[in-house]
C-alpha cells in the first residue's frame, strides 16, 4: 500500500530511533525530542476524523503507523496516543496536546456522587503512564460505556516496567471527574481491551518483520565451516518458518485493522491477538537460535525486539484469554456449522 503517512513515519523512525535511543529509554529516559517531531508531523492524530484534526486517511492506513513503530521498536506511546485520541473524539471530548495512553477500564469503579462522576480503583501495567499527560479509558456506568480522560498529575503512579524496560506503571485512581473529562462513548467497540489488543497485534507484526530481516542478514553474513550459515538447510528451514509466522501475524493484525469500527472487529481482533502472540513465541525462539550467542547479548539489537514481542503478548489479553473468548463464541454460535461461523466471522456488517 502506497501511503504518504507511512513513508513519513518510516523516514522519521529510521533517522531517529537508534539502538542507543532504545537503550536509553529502557534505562528510564523519555525521548522527548523525538516525541516533538512525531507531534509536528501530526502522526498521533492519524486515527481521528478529519473534522477533529486528522488526515482523513482510512483507519487501516492510520493503524499501519503502529506496525511501522513496532518495526522500529519506538519507545514512545504513539499507538496509545492514536487510540486515545480516536476514543476521545468518538466521545466528543477535547483532544489534549501531549502524550496520551490507554488502559483497560474493567478494574475501575465509576459512580455518581451527588451530581458529579467519580472514578476509583487500581490499574496495573498501564503503558507509559509516567510519560503521559492523560490516561484514556472506557468504563461502563449503568450499562453505558463512558470515555474517561484522566489527568496523570491527579493520579498516583508507581513505576513498573515490562520485559523490554518500557514503563508499565501501576496507577491508583480516586478522582472526581468534570464534564470535560467524561462522556458516554459514541458506540461500543468492546472497550479498551480490544483496541489495545489491536495495536499490540500490529506492533508485533512490525517487530516480527524486523526480526526476520535481521535474521536473514545475519544468516547471510555469519560464516562458519567456510560458508554463510544461510547455506545450511536447517537454517533455511528456520528462516522459512520465521517468514510464515511473520506473514501470518501481519495478515491477522491487518485483518483486525481492516474491520476496525465494523461488526467483525470483536472476532477478528481476538484472532489477531492470539495468532500474533503465538507467532511471537515461535519467531523469538528461532531468531535467537539463528543468531547464536551474540544475539543473547545486551550489545546486540535483537533483544530490543524479542523482549517487546514477548511483553506485548501479556497486555490487553493473553493468547489464552482471546482463545477462550473466540472458542466460546465458536461453540455457542447459532450457526448450523462451524464453517458458517468462520465465514461470518470476517463479514463486515456496520456496527450500530
Amino acid at each position, binding site marked *: 500500500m502506497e501511503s504518504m503517512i507511512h513513508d513519513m513515519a518510516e523516514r522519521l523512525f529510521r533517522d531517529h530511533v537508534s539502538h542507543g535511543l532504545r537503550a536509553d529509554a529502557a534505562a528510564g529516559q523519555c525521548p522527548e525530542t523525538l516525541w516533538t517531531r512525531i507531534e509536528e508531523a501530526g502522526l498521533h492524530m492519524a486515527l481521528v476524523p478529519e473534522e477533529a484534526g486528522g488526515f482523513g486517511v482510512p483507519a487501516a492506513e492510520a493503524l499501519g503507523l503502529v506496525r511501522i513503530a513496532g518495526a522500529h521498536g519506538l519507545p514512545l506511546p504513539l499507538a496509545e496516543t492514536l487510540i486515545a485520541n480516536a476514543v476521545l473524539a468518538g466521545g466528543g471530548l477535547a483532544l489534549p496536546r501531549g502524550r496520551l495512553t490507554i488502559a483497560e477500564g474493567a478494574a475501575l469503579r465509576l459512580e455518581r456522587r451527588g451530581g458529579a462522576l467519580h472514578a476509583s480503583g487500581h490499574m496495573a501495567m498501564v503503558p507509559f503512564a509516567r510519560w503521559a499527560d492523560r490516561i484514556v479509558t472506557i468504563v461502563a456506568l449503568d450499562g453505558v460505556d463512558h470515555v474517561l480522560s484522566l489527568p496523570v498529575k491527579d493520579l498516583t503512579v508507581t513505576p513498573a516496567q515490562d520485559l523490554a524496560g518500557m514503563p508499565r506503571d501501576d496507577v491508583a485512581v480516586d478522582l472526581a471527574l468534570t464534564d470535560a473529562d467524561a462522556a458516554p462513548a459514541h458506540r461500543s467497540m468492546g472497550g479498551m481491551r480490544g483496541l489495545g489488543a489491536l495495536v499490540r497485534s500490529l506492533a508485533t507484526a512490525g517487530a516480527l518483520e524486523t526480526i526476520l530481516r535481521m535474521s536473514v542478514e545475519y544468516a547471510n553474513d555469519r560464516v562458519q565451516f567456510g560458508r554463510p550459515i544461510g547455506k545450511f538447510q536447517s537454517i533455511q528451514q528456520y528462516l522459512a518458518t520465521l517468514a510464515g509466522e511473520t*506473514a501470518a501475524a*501481519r*495478515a491477522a493484525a491487518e485483518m483486525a485493522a481492516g474491520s476496525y469500527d465494523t461488526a467483525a472487529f470483536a472476532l477478528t481482533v481476538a484472532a489477531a491477538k492470539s495468532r500474533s502472540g503465538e507467532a511471537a513465541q515461535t519467531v523469538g525462539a528461532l531468531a535467537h537460535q539463528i543468531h547464536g550467542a551474540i544475539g543473547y547479548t545486551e550489545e546486540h539489537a535483537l533483544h530490543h525486539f524479542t523482549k517487546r514481542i514477548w511483553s506485548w503478548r501479556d497486555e490487553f489479553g493473553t493468547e489464552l484469554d482471546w*482463545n477462550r473468548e473466540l472458542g466460546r463464541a465458536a*461453540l455457542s454460535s447459532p450457526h448450523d456449522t*462451524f*464453517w458458517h461461523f468462520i465465514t461470518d466471522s470476517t463479514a463486515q456488517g456496520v456496527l450500530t
Partner: protein
Amino acid sequence: MTLTAFPPPPSGADHNDLRQEVRAFLAEELADFSPEKRARSWNGFSRDFSRKLAQRGWVGMTFPEEYGGHARSALERYVVSEELLAAGAPVIAHWIADRQSGPLILAKGTEEQKRAIVPRIAAGELCFCIGMSEPDSGSDLAATRTVATEVEGGFRVNGTKVWTTYAHVADYMILFCRTGKSDDRHGGMSQLLVDLKATKNIQISPIIDLAGEHHFNQVIFDDTFLPSDALLGEKGEGWSQVMSELAFERSGPERFLSSFALIEELIRLLRIDATEAQQAEIGRLSAHLMVLRQMSRSVAGMLNEGNNPALQAAIVKDLGALFEQDIPRLARSLISRPAVPGGRDSYAAVLAYTELAVPSFSLRGGTREILRGIIARGLGLR
C-alpha cells in the same frame, strides 16, 4: 511488496448471495452424503456431481465466455471452492482442470486447443491429471527423464510417471517431459497435452496408498506417438510454464481445509459441553483458520490482479499443511474416543480416515522442505 505482506482481499470479496446459492445447492445434492465420505475432501470423484456443478455455472468460472466460461472473478471462484471443500463435496473429477489445466491452456494454448478443450472443462466433462513426478524425479523436478523425441508429424514419448492422481479415469494428462538438450538444468523441458482416451501405448497401473485407496497411478509411455498439436505452449519453456501454475496450485483453500470434516465432527461433540481448556483450543483453531483464509483470499486477490504471487502461495501451503495435519492430534487431545475405520460413530470413522490421510498433505503439491527452500530463497538468502 515484501514477502510477508498479504494485502487484504478486495472489499466485497464475501459474495454472500453466491455463497448462499452454493450452500443451497450443496444441501440438496449432498443431503445423504455421510461425514466419512465428506472426510475424503477434494479426493472424492463424481463425474455426475461435477457436471451438475458446471450446469450451475460453477466450473470454469474465471474462463472467458467465448470458451464456455463465465468471466467471474478469482474471488467469486474462491467462494465456490471453499464452500465445496467445507462441505466435503466430491470435486476431483473437475478440480485440477478447473484450477490449473484450464488456466494454463487459456494462457499458453493455441486457438485450436482452447476451442477444443476449454469449453468441455467448463461443462464439467473433462478430468485432468498432471504427469510430473517420476521414479527418480520427485522433489527434484529438473531430474525428469521422460523424453519426447520429435518425429514426423509429432513426438515419440518414452518414460515413466508416478503418483499420477486419477490417471486411471482422467481424460487428459498434461505431461512434463524433456524435448531437447540444454546446458541450463531447467532448459529443454516442455508440456504436452495427452489425450488419454485416444492415445495408444500408454500403460496405466494402480499404486495403492496406505489407506488401501486407489488415487495414484504409474503411467508408462512406451514409444507413444503424440501429434505435433499436443505441444502446449512453447517448446523448451516447460519449466517456466510449470512455475507459473504453482501459485494457482498452492494457495487455494484445499491447502488448509483437507481435514475440515474432522473439525466439524469435533466441534459437533464439543458444542454439547466443553471445558475452558477445550474452548481455548477451539479458539486457537479458529484464529488459525481465520488467518489462513485471509491469506489465501489475499493470494486470490493478487491472482485476480494478474500477479504471480508464487512465494506467498508457498507460505500459504506450508502454513496450511501444518494446520490440516495437526487436526487429528488436536482432536485426540480434546476427546478420548478411538479411531475406527468405517465405524458407525461418525467421529470415530472420520478420525480414522483423516489420520491415514494427513501424512500426504505435506508431500503433495511440493514437499514441506521444497516449499521452505523456495521461501528461504525468496527472503534474499545468498
